[in-house]
């Protein structure tokens, strides 16, 4: 940490590659997307997408650093949206009750995921694949049973609308952007400036040794699963409040998009390496690539191809820099480089 002031030290940080990837795609779309892409309306276009994804991607990334995976977030987004829409829209109860129930469901599913993972020793990919389908089924079944429809309207007014689902700061950015910045700051502290962070990295490196060293791995695993599923439910809830409507389907794209953002952000798929700031940059990179297309003149039928190639380039760039950074040593007397 002492060499942070030098360029080599900065490049050695896990988020350095992610930041360079971000700069690269930003330049790419600034060239092909023109001025509109960098105007406030254009910037909000990817910042809003990044915010919604980022709130989910960071806890998913932390789980990946700790050697776990949570794909049930794909079902938690529609669950969150539908819970608040059914409670506060269909039944017309207080929005705060809807918010409280939504977050409670997030906590409950997270607890179930966490307990199943530590009790059964089944890989978390499989456990959360199970809960992904189970929760999707519950959302569809209960929604149709209660409302006889797969789409529920929700009209929110007052402070709840302003806090969870409105546009702020000049009317272009979603309130979610503020939430994203707040939770990112919280996670940075939690991971990089408290002992919990070291525990997470230790778990991802070697779980058995981590437990032998006295780290409460089980409690930490459950906490991380609760964070990811609650965050996903929160995002779904805010989207329902913002768009005044909730659909049973949807949300699955968050699974892949979150994992992509995390990997572009420099987290190793095998765990044990990564950073919150890296995931933050990775999420922005993904959002720019995903939304930047619309500011270019490329035929829209090629969108997916461009997204795929750019993301792959971002990861390759990231990996190259990580290798360079890890093999870098500061200049010593007599050394050639």
């Amino acid at each position: 940490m002492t060499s942070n002031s030098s360029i080599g030290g900065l490049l050695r940080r896990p988020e350095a590659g992610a930041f360079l990837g971000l700069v690269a795609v930003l330049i790419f779309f600034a060239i092909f997307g023109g001025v509109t892409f960098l105007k406030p309306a254009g910037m909000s276009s990817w910042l809003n997408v990044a915010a919604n994804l980022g709130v989910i991607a960071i806890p998913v990334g932390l789980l990946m650093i700790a050697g776990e995976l949570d794909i049930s977030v794909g079902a938690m987004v529609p669950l969150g949206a539908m819970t608040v829409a059914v409670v506060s829209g269909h039944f017309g109860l207080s929005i705060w009750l809807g918010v409280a129930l939504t977050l409670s469901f997030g906590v409950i599913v997270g607890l179930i995921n966490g307990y199943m993972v530590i009790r059964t020793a089944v890989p978390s990919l499989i456990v959360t694949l199970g809960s992904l389908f189970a929760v999707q089924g519950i959302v569809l079944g209960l929604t149709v049973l209660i409302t006889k429809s797969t789409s529920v309207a929700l009209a929110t007014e007052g402070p709840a609308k302003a806090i969870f689902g409105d546009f702020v700061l000049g009317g272009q950015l979603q309130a979610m952007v503020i939430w994203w910045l707040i939770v990112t700051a919280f996670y940075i502290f939690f991971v990089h400036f408290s002992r919990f962070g070291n525990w997470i990295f230790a778990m991802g490196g070697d779980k058995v040794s981590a437990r032998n060293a006295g780290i409460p791995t089980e409690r930490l695993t459950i906490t991380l699963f609760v964070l990811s599923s609650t965050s996903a439910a929160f995002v779904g809830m805010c989207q329902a409040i913002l768009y005044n409507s909730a659909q049973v389907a949807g949300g699955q794209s968050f699974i892949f998009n979150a994992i992509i953002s995390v990997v572009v952000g420099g987290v190793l798929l095998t765990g044990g390496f990564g950073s919150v700031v890296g995931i933050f940059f990775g999420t922005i990179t993904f959002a720019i690539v995903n939304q930047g297309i619309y500011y270019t003149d490329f035929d829209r039928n090629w969108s997916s191809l461009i997204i795929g190639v750019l993301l792959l380039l971002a990861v390759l760039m990231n990996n190259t820099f990580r290798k360079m950074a890890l093999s870098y040593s500061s200049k010593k007397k007599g050394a050639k480089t």
Partner: protein
Amino acid sequence: MKLSTFTKVMATTALVAMTATATLAADIAVIGGSNDDAFWNKIKKGLDDATPAVVANGGSVNYLRLVNYDNFAPDVVQLIRTAISMEVDGLVIPDWVPEAEDPAIKEAIAAGITVILMNAGGADKARELGAINYVGNEEYPAGVAGGEYFASHGQKNVLCVNTLPGATNTEARCKGVSDAITAAGGKSTQLPLPTTSFGDATAVAEAIKAEILKDETIDGVITISAGDADSAAIGIEQSGRAAAISLASFDMNEAGLARIKAGTQTFSIDQQPYLQGYLSVSILASAIDFGTSLPTFPILTGPGIVDASNIDATLAGVEKGAR
């Protein structure tokens, strides 16, 4: 009158009555989706409303519903065989899975049952099988109706937002819109969204906003589903060009109807499932009972346009479960 004479008269009367019922009045079986399927409940409301007229002429309507969709094709075929064994006079059937259903439908027709296809199958399939008609929706004409509505209301450049590019029905919808507007001298481009955006309302909204900002001649946006219109509404609002852009959607939901009522959405295109139930039963009963035949083939129940002019009646229909 002697008891034996009385008995004879009564028995003869009963026999005549029974014979009359069997030969003249239509006993109709309708096969359809499960009770917890909101769409099929609207169809059921239609056939329930048509039933009294059939009963008044001495016939009956029997709704054979799928309990669930777990064992779809075999269950549907089983229901067709049930209808044949009930010796009904008429059968209303959606041809969801032609490979599985067609042999059974042909069997029904061979057994003397008058068949009408409803909801799924299409006109060509009805002709091929020997059904008397097809009552339902077709995607391309629905798109054309949307395009014509835009054109007649002055829109010149309409964006068709397709969150499921490549699917036959959504492509047909966007193509219909494009063909109709092009014929009227305007244009329509399709915006195919990548799968990374599917189900993420913000990604859809921001993509639409970006397209609107980029091409300032866009004055209309239509989405392939009602849920996407919720995203589009926010995207349009955020572009700052809400006054200049007219929003429409295929299918409708509660939030969309509220927007039409409030004036922030221009119209929705509905396939009107109520009419599918109502018309198929009425037409079939009339054909069996009175030998009527319709020159209209197929009978399209959609597209029905819901806009400011009929939003109040539509909302009343929603209340009653017909829309």
